[in-house]
C-alpha cells in the first residue's frame, strides 16, 4: 500500500468529522446512526436532491403567476443578497464556536497535524452547512425561475458559479470579521460587542421596517414587488453581486472577472488574518477565558482614585460580564422584545401603513408614546435577570464582600446603577431611537417631538421601580449555594413576570391606539385621555421616588441581617 495516499487530504477529512462531533454537530452515517452508514448517506443525498427538485419545480410552476411583477434579475440579485447575509450570520455563529470557544486546541496541537491543517479543518467544519444551504437554495430557485423565463447560457453559468461564490464570500468575510474582532477586543469584551452589534442590528431592522412600510402602498403583488425592489436596490451596494448580475443578464465578461476578483480578495484577506492572528488569540483565551478570578480588595479598587461606589460599579460590571446569565439576558434584551414588537407588524402590514392618518394627532401620539414607553420598560426589565439575581450571583464571595470595609448602601447603589444602565439600553435608548425614526418618517408632527424625551423619562422611572423591587426581593433571601451560574439564566422572578405582563398589555394598548387613532381625536375622549395620561405619569413619578427611597433603606438592612 502506498502510504502517501492517506496524506494531507484524508487527514483533514477525518479531523473535520472529529471536530463536527466534538462541537455537537450531527455527523451523517455516524456510529450512532440507526441504519447502516452507506444507507444513511444515500438517504440524505436522496432527500437533499428531492428537496432541491421540489423547490425547483415549485418555482418553475409559479413563475408565470409572478412574471408580471417579479423579474428574474431582481429576484436573483435579491436572493443572492439574502443568502450572502444568511451565510455570513450562520458562519459567524459556527466560527466563534469552533475556532474560539471549543477549548480543543490543547488537545489538537500535539497531534500529528500541521497548524494549517487544523485551521482548514476547523473552517470547513464551520462552513459545511451554510455553504450547502446556499448552494441548494440559490440554484433551485434561480434556475427554476430563469429557465421558465427563457434566460441564456450566461445566466446558468452565473447561477451555478454564484452558488459557490456567494457562500464562500460570506464565510470568508465572517472569518475575517471574527478573527479581527477577537484579536482587537479579547474574549470578555467580545460578548459585549456581540450584544451591542445585535442591538444595533435590531434597532436598524425596526427603523428600516418603518421606513419601508411607510413607503409601500397597494395590495398583494405590487406590494411584494415594491418590497423586492427595496432589497434589489440594497443588493446593488454589494459589488460581487452587482458585477455577477451584469455578467448574467448583460453578458459582460468584465463583470464576471470583477466578481471573481472581489471574492478572491476577500478569501486572501481572510487567510492572511487567520495566519496573523488566530493561534495566539485562541491560545491566550484558553488560559484566561474560563477561569474565575477571585475577588480581592485590589480588584474592588481597580479604578484607583475613584470613590468606593465607582469601584463597586466597575466590579459589578466585570463580574456580570463574566456570567453566562448576562449573555443570555443580553441576547433577550437585544433581540427578543424588539422582535416581539415588530412581529405583529410583519404579519399584518396594514397596521402602520394603511389605516392611520399620518402624522398622528396629539392625543393618539401622547397615548401611544406613554403606552410604548411603559411596554419598553416592562419588557426590557421583564427579560432582565440581572437585578433579580444581583446578590445571589455573588455566591461564595458574598460573605467576603460583606466583610470588606464598604458601605452596604454603596454596594446596593452599585447593583442598582449597573442594572439601570443595562435596562436603559433596552428601553430608554429604544424609545429615543424609535421616536426619532417616527419623527423622521412623519408619524408624529414636529410639534409633538417633546414626547420623545418625555417617553424616555417615563421609561427610565419605571425601570427604576422594577429594578428596585427586584433588588429588594433578592436581598431578602439571596440564594448563594448554587452549582453553576447558568442556573440563573433560566429563572424569572415574580417581578419579572409582572413586568412582562404589563409590557405586553401596554404593547397591545399601543397597537389599539394606532388602529383607533382617528376616533381618539373627538373632543370628549381627547380630554379624558390627556387627564388619564397625566395621572399615570404623575403616579409613576411619585411611586419611583417613594420606592427608591424605601428600597435604598431596606436593602442594606436586609443584607446586614442575612445569615
Amino acid at each position, binding site marked *: 500500500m502506498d502510504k502517501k495516499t492517506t496524506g494531507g487530504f484524508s487527514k483533514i477529512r477525518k479531523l473535520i468529522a472529529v471536530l463536527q462531533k466534538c462541537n455537537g454537530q*450531527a455527523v*451523517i*452515517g455516524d456510529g450512532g*446512526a*440507526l*441504519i447502516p452508514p452507506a444507507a444513511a*448517506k444515500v*438517504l*440524505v443525498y436522496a432527500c437533499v436532491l428531492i428537496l432541491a427538485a421540489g423547490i425547483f419545480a415549485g418555482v418553475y410552476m409559479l413563475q408565470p403567476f409572478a412574471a408580471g411583477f417579479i423579474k428574474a434579475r431582481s429576484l436573483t440579485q435579491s436572493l443572492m443578497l439574502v443568502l450572502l447575509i444568511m451565510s455570513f450570520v450562520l458562519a459567524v455563529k459556527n466560527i466563534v464556536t469552533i475556532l474560539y470557544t471549543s477549548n480543543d486546541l490543547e488537545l489538537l496541537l500535539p497531534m500529528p497535524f500541521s497548524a494549517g491543517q487544523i485551521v482548514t479543518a476547523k473552517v470547513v467544519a464551520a462552513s459545511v452547512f451554510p455553504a450547502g444551504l446556499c448552494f441548494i437554495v440559490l440554484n433551485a430557485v434561480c434556475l427554476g425561475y430563469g429557465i421558465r423565463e427563457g434566460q441564456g447560457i450566461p445566466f446558468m453559468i452565473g447561477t451555478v458559479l454564484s452558488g459557490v461564490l456567494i457562500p464562500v464570500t460570506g464565510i470568508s468575510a465572517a472569518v475575517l470579521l471574527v478573527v479581527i474582532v477577537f484579536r482587537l477586543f479579547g474574549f470578555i469584551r467580545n460578548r459585549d460587542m456581540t450584544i451591542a452589534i445585535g442591538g444595533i442590528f435590531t434597532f436598524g431592522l425596526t427603523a428600516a421596517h418603518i421606513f419601508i412600510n411607510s413607503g409601500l402602498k397597494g395590495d398583494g403583488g405590487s406590494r411584494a414587488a415594491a418590497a423586492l425592489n427595496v432589497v434589489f436596490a440594497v443588493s446593488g451596494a454589494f459589488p460581487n453581486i452587482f458585477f455577477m448580475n451584469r455578467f448574467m443578464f448583460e453578458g459582460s465578461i468584465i463583470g464576471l472577472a470583477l466578481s471573481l476578483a472581489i471574492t478572491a480578495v476577500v478569501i486572501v484577506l481572510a487567510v492572511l488574518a487567520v495566519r496573523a492572528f488566530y493561534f495566539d488569540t485562541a491560545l491566550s483565551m484558553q488560559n484566561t477565558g474560563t477561569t474565575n478570578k477571585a475577588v480581592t480588595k485590589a480588584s474592588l479598587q481597580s479604578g484607583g482614585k475613584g470613590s468606593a461606589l465607582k469601584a463597586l460599579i466597575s466590579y459589578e460590571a466585570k463580574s456580570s460580564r463574566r456570567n453566562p446569565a448576562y449573555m443570555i439576558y443580553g441576547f433577550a434584551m437585544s433581540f427578543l422584545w424588539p422582535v416581539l414588537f415588530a412581529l405583529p407588524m410583519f404579519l399584518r402590514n396594514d397596521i402602520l401603513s394603511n389605516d392611520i392618518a399620518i402624522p398622528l394627532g396629539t392625543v393618539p401620539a401622547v397615548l401611544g408614546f406613554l403606552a410604548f414607553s411603559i411596554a419598553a420598560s416592562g419588557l426590557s426589565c421583564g427579560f432582565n435577570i440581572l437585578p433579580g439575581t444581583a446578590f445571589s450571583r455573588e455566591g461564595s464571595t458574598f460573605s467576603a464582600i460583606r466583610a470588606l470595609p464598604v458601605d452596604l448602601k454603596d454596594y446596593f447603589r452599585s447593583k442598582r446603577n449597573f442594572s439601570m444602565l443595562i435596562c436603559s439600553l433596552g428601553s430608554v435608548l429604544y424609545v429615543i431611537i424609535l421616536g426619532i425614526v417616527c419623527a423622521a418618517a412623519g408619524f408624529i408632527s414636529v410639534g409633538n417631538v417633546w414626547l420623545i424625551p418625555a417617553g424616555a423619562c417615563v421609561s427610565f422611572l419605571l425601570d427604576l421601580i422594577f429594578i428596585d423591587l427586584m433588588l429588594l426581593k433578592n436581598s431578602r433571601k439571596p440564594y448563594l449555594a448554587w452549582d453553576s451560574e447558568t442556573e440563573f439564566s433560566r429563572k424569572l422572578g415574580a417581578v419579572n413576570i409582572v413586568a412582562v405582563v404589563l409590557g405586553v398589555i401596554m404593547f397591545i394598548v399601543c397597537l389599539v391606539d394606532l388602529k383607533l387613532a382617528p376616533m381618539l381625536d373627538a373632543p370628549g375622549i381627547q380630554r379624558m385621555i390627556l387627564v388619564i395620561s397625566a395621572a399615570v405619569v404623575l403616579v409613576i413619578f411619585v411611586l419611583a421616588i417613594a420606592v427608591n427611597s424605601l428600597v435604598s433603606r431596606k436593602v442594606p438592612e436586609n443584607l446586614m441581617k442575612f445569615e
Partner: protein
Amino acid sequence: MEKMDYNQILFVAIGLYTIIRGIMILTTGKISAREEAKLHERKVSEKGIRKYKMLSAGMNLIGGLVVVICCALRMLAVIDMTTFRIIALIAIALMLILYFLIYNSCMNDR
C-alpha cells in the same frame, strides 16, 4: 386549487421540519440533550435507547408526512372537510396509542 391561506403554509413548514428531523435522527442517531438525559436517568439499556430513537425517528417521519399530505389534500380540495376531520382524528388517536405503547416498552427496557 382552493385559495391558500397562511395557516396552510405554516403547517407545511412544520411538516417539512418534522420530516427533516426524523431523517436526521435516522441518519445520525442524535436526539435532543434532554431526551438523552432522561434515558440516562432511567438507566435504559442500549437496546432500549435504540428502540426509542427508532420510535422518535418514525414518529417524526410519519407525523410530518401526515401533516404535509393533509395540507395537500386540503389545498387541492379533493376531500370534503367532515371526512377529512374524522380520518385525521382517527389517525392521530391511533398514532398516539401506538406511540405510548412503544414508549413504555422502551422505558422499561433496562
